[in-house]
């Protein structure tokens, strides 16, 4: 993800692959800043990214050319300038630029402090950055104790203004000086009322109020405790300093030339035992009462030294906000227009911790959290699977939203609006509602509003409460500790520890018309859920399906099944389970599919697959796919971990054995070996352990060959060309496809007659590669619609006259077969040609940029090399391909989901989805504007050039994409896919490239 594109990027077909927007929480944040005028915040990351967030939908992204950690970020309030300090000690100026009505973040200049001759480079290491309110200068405090001044926006050093510690030491009394240096500058704060006065704090504890204009010391605070941070009281009458011993001190500021030995107040809030340092402290005045003192750290070293805390203290009220990850930084948000000028009246406290962003409402008693509209911690429990539902009907959407709006617990979230609301979102209202479902390790399924730029949490469904797990008493423990001191309060939702790995969600299927959902997990549990607007108390009926089907000689060595809780259970409004199907053996569910019209759910594991009628609540079919020689399939994922010791022991044995065998080499063999060595032309290549790969075709008895990889329902022609009917298809890891003809009673007779399944066909792909997807195409070559889509007039009825065909995608090739005679029509051997393997595949319909009517069905395929290939359907002609994900990023590739309309998501970090688009029409990317009032207009020269490019670019009024990236990859892709429709796009691309 690079910042707004460069002219060279435009129109090069296929080359630049860029995601459109990142959803979730940036990985490894390292810096935070807030602009109270623009009301936007910025987050910097260890990877060198800078992200600006304002109102929902207002997002700007920039990336430093250097991949260095952003250690500090500072806004020049209101001016659209942002200073970033990297850990390579360079300072960078970012600018919010406007082009074509949209704002973009651009790095304009960078600066490094010149080293001082004869000194170690460490002393010019910048420790403090303070942009001055006047806006024309930045003040840099350094490791060596010097304070430098740099002009803005040119970033030139004002050498004559530099303040060296020697100058300060002149005014320091001798008994304080003791010949010791002042240490690094720890904090520089501007006087809240008088811009020319700076409060400079040195590590040793000395704090100086420095008058810039006259270069005189106004006030000396002779602190003796190692200083961590400083903050002004808003009136400028007192300051607060925090220290490494976990204490803070309040000092009174008075007239000129004074020296203060003692603070007016000094306290160690979590004493008396040794405490950790208070790394940052804020003092915020409040009209309604005592001032807020907010600080991070300071916990008693021995008992709570490992906690990540921010403390909020107002008068006698103290809350110790206890986070699950390290605190990076925090700030408070003031009301935009203070009711009375003397007070700051903080509305909210925003804390950035390593894994999430938490906002606390400081105006509501109890200081509840404010739910964030973006930066959702997707990884609050690790994501185990994801699934996208497009075009969600409004009715279902509203029901899901209302189910989530009722708070499940006593911890009411604040009703206060999100306080960071700067900027204007210019993106069009999303034309349809998209739902992203993520399954998590702890058994929850989270529903996200993926319609627009910001991924909003909608609803969270837990499945753990259906089972007996040991996690329950944990909650009671927490409650018991209420009286403890410090008054810890758990905030945030990042909790990477799963109580029971068996709860993990493996597969999700949702029917958006009937609000039925299937959630399947690691211990072979398949939950059929129904959306209910009322809370309910009912028992979940449990059924077990034996997938081994009396196969003998197999003993499951993996985990036990989850024991369901007995009796009626309480369920809040939302998705409530009606049936629990448990597979035997309880291996992880590897495929699941749902047909709500036929009331059927199909599920598969590494042992076989089953079909369950959830209306009559009885199993219809179970089929074992296990190969008799497959031993690995019977070991659950957990038992394999357990057997590590065993395998280690075995490998040691093997080594020993081979040594024994190798030693007595018979003389003729030695001679032969020597002769071979001599025959080699050059010196033998020095390769320690050459990586070898065995070349062998797959055989039927490869391990895990029976894993069911995909399941599919279709109303099509299986037995003869005259009659179509319900069918179910299953594909396995060894290239087998099983097709069943289903006898499904009509709607009225569901309760009377049972569903029957008869094996219709078995197909064995000769190349035996895993079958990753099966789809049936109608007579016109279109994929069959989803259940209810036709009866509700949401899709065209499929063509049942022409002959249907079946698309089978294996890891190695795509094949289209005719139905009902399964004869091969077309195929594309991806692996044989490209040497890559299919990881994810989906049928997507891409709309032409010119007209929404022109839809083209394509096969989108993500390979193990991270490339996305697009093929026509059903002719399977390769169209374009992009390199999309790094091939080393296995979890990114594994996490990819395609939407029906040619967008997609993949995880770029455990907490972030990158969104991309293969379509020119269907693009979700941030378009926003920040109104910047800059003192000097310094629009960089480059923009003049851009103007020309821009004019060329934005000429076409029918364009829907506005960003400069807009015209890059996906447009060209579309041009290829729908050749006639987007000739405009092509020409544009050519004239620009």
């Amino acid at each position: 993800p690079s910042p707004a594109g460069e002219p060279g990027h435009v129109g090069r077909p296929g080359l630049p692959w860029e995601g459109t927007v990142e959803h979730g929480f940036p990985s490894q944040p390292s810096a935070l800043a807030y602009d109270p005028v623009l009301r936007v915040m910025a987050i910097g990351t260890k990877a060198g990214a800078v992200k600006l967030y304002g109102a929902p939908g207002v997002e700007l992204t920039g990336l430093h050319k250097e991949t260095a950690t952003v250690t500090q970020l500072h806004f020049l309030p209101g001016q659209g300038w942002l200073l970033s300090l990297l850990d390579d000690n360079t300072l960078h100026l970012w600018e919010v630029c406007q082009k074509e009505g949209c704002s973009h973040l651009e790095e304009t200049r960078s600066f490094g402090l010149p080293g001082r001759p004869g000194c170690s480079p460490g002393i010019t290491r910048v420790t403090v950055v303070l942009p001055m309110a006047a806006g024309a200068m930045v003040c840099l405090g350094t490791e060596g104790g010097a304070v430098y001044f740099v002009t803005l926006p040119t970033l030139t050093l004002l050498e004559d203004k530099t303040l060296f510690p020697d100058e300060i030491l002149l005014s320091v009394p001798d008994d304080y000086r003791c010949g010791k240096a002042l240490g690094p500058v720890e904090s520089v704060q501007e006087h809240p009322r008088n811009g020319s006065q700076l409060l400079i704090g040195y590590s040793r504890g000395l704090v100086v109020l420095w008058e810039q204009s006259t270069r005189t010391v106004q006030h000396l605070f002779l602190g003796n405790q190692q200083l961590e941070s400083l903050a002004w009281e808003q009136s400028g009458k007192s300051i607060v300093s925090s220290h490494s011993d976990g204490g803070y001190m309040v000092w009174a500021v008075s007239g000129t030339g004074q020296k203060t030995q003692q603070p007016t107040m000094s306290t160690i809030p979590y004493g008396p035992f040794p405490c950790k340092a208070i790394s940052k402290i804020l003092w915020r005045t409040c009209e309604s009462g005592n001032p807020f003192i907010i600080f991070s750290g300071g916990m008693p070293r021995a008992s709570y030294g490992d906690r990540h805390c921010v403390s909020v203290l107002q008068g006698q009220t103290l809350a110790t906000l206890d986070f699950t990850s390290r605190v990076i930084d925090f700030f408070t948000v003031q009301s935009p227009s203070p009711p009375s000028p003397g007070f700051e009246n903080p509305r909210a406290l925003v804390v950035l911790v390593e894994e999430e962003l938490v906002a606390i409402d400081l105006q509501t008693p109890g200081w509840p959290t404010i739910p964030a509209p973006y930066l959702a911690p997707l990884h609050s429990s690790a994501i185990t699977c994801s699934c996208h539902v497009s075009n969600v009907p409004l009715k279902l959407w509203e029901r899901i939203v209302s189910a989530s709006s009722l708070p499940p617990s006593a911890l009411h979230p604040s009703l206060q609006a999100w306080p960071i609301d700067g900027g204007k979102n210019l993106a069009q209202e999303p034309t349809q509602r998209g739902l992203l479902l993520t399954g998590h390790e702890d058994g929850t399924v989270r529903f996200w509003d993926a319609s627009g730029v910001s991924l909003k949490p909608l609803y969270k469904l837990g499945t753990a409460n259906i089972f007996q797990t040991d996690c329950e008493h944990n909650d009671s423990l927490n409650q018991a500790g209420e009286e403890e001191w410090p008054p810890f309060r758990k905030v945030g939702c990042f909790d990477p520890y799963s109580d029971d790995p068996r709860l993990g969600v493996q597969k999700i299927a949702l029917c958006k018309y009937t609000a039925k959902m299937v959630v399947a997990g690691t211990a072979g549990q398949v939950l059929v859920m129904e959306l209910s607007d009322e809370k309910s108390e009912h028992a979940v009926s449990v059924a077990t399906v034996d997938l081994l089907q009396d196969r003998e000689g197999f003993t499951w060595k993996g985990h036990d099944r989850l024991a369901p809780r007995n009796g009626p259970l309480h369920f809040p409004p939302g998705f409530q389970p009606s049936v629990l199907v448990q597979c035997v053996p309880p291996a992880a569910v590897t495929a699941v599919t749902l047909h709500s019209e036929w009331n059927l759910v199909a599920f598969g594991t590494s042992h076989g697959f089953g079909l369950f009628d959830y209306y009559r609540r009885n199993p219809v079919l179970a089929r074992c796919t296990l190969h008799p020689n497959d031993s690995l399939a019977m070991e659950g994922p957990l038992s394999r971990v357990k057997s590590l010791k065993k395998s280690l022991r075995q490998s040691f044995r093997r080594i020993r054995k081979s040594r024994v065998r190798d030693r007595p080499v018979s003389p003729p063999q030695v001679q032969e070996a020597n002769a071979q060595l001599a025959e080699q032309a050059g010196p033998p290549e020095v390769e320690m352990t050459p990586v070898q790969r065995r070349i062998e075709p797959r055989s039927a008895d490869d391990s895990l060959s029976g894993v069911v990889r995909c399941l599919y329902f279709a109303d099509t022609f299986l037995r003869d060309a005259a009659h179509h009917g319900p069918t179910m298809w299953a594909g396995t890891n060894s290239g087998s496809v099983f097709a069943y003809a289903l006898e499904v009673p009509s709607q009225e007779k569901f309760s009377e007659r049972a569903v029957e399944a008869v094996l219709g066909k078995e197909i064995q792909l000769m190349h035996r590669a895993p079958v990753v997807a099966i789809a049936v195409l109608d007579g016109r070559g279109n994929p069959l619609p989803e259940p209810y889509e036709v009866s509700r007039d949401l899709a065209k009825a499929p063509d049942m006259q022409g002959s249907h065909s079946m698309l089978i995608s294996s890891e190695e090739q795509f094949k289209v077969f005719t139905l009902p005679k399964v004869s091969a029509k077309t195929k594309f051997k991806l692996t044989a040609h490209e040497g890559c393997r299919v990881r994810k595949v989906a049928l997507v319909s891409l709309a032409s940029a010119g007209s929404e009517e022109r839809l083209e069905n394509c096969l989108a395929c993500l390979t193990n090399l991270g490339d996305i290939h697009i093929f026509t359907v059903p002719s399977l002609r390769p169209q374009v391909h992009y390199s999309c994900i790094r091939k080393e990023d296995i979890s990114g590739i594994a996490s990819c989901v395609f939407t029906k309309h040619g967008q997609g998501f993949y995880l770029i970090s455990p907490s972030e989805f990158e969104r991309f688009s293969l379509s020119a029409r269907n693009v979700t990317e941030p378009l926003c504007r920040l109104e910047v009032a800059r003192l000097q207009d310094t629009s960089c020269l480059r923009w003049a050039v851009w103007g020309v490019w821009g004019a060329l670019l934005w000429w076409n009024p029918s364009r829907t994409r506005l960003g400069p990236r807009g015209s890059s990859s996906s447009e060209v892709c579309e041009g290829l896919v729908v050749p006639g429709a987007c000739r405009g796009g092509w020409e544009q691309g050519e004239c620009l490239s």
Partner: protein
Amino acid sequence: MNRAQRGAAGSRGLGTMEVKSKFGAEFRRFSLERSKPGKFEEFYGLLQHVHKIPNVDVLVGYTDIHGDLLPINNDDNYHKAVSTANPLLRIFIQRKEDADYSAFGTDTMTRKKNVLSNVLRPDNHKKKPHIVISMPQDFRPVSSIIDVDILPETHRRVRLYKYGTDKPLGFYIRDGSSVRVTPHGLEKVPGIFISRLVPGGLAQSTGLLAVNDEVLEVNGIEVSGKSLDQVTDMMIANSRNLIITVRPANQRNNVVRNSRTSGSSGQSTESSLPSSTPNILGNLQGEEESDEEDIIIEDSGEPQQIPKAAPTSESIESLSQIELLHESTQNGFLPSSDMNLNHSAGSISMEYEVPEQGRKSLEEDGTIITL
């Protein structure tokens, strides 16, 4: 029927030849065009047709000018028979099951008369195992060096036929670096090499590949620029009909073509390394389609090979062939009636081996043979 009738009608031009065919006690006479005898399969079908034994497997023999009974079982010896027959081609047909293989060979006609010697020394000819020349469909392709004529002498293109053998392919590949001659001189480039041959495996038993041979192409696709994993995947994907072009580590056994002197092998051809593959594809494509056909089992439990919807038709010349096809399908040559619709003329060459148990065939690779 046409040709036989035409022959019988007596239009005996110079180009035609009389055929006298004996099956059991029955004789049939018909004529063949000497210049255009057609393929053996057509002739075989024609014989079955004229003798009204459409689904009987038979052995076909003829007497050559020396009076020896020689078999006809492929295009070559069929053409030989036609070209040498003068004026009459005598055909002897035996049922396969009660065929007397010893009848074939040199001096067979004379030996036959010498019954006494056979009776006196019966073990004499039992000891000698007779070489049976089978029908074309009984043959299977074997691994070989191919495209010798279009490849540089330093390269070797090897086709490994896994088909029908239980042997593992049996080799390993590794990363390495190779030295190439480029316009800028010698350059070290990454390459893929054969690292190990499994004893008793196909690769070793053919003797066509050796450790440290550099792999240049896999089924016509250059491997340069591809990772070891990619090449592994490509080889496995093509493992049923794997064609690898290698530069043998040992360049001493290269095939030396007549057009070149032996001294020219080695470095001189190096620089003329083919840059793009299509022009030297040679054998790579033609047989590609036949190598892997998926098996489909209908609910009856019978396995079938999945036929192609639109098979590429082979040479269909004579009218009689079409008729033959009709006959053969009618008589259950193909296992399922479903297949008829799909078959056009070219697919006569397909034959299915139907094992008793459908399930079993799924687990075996080589049961389905296509020619």
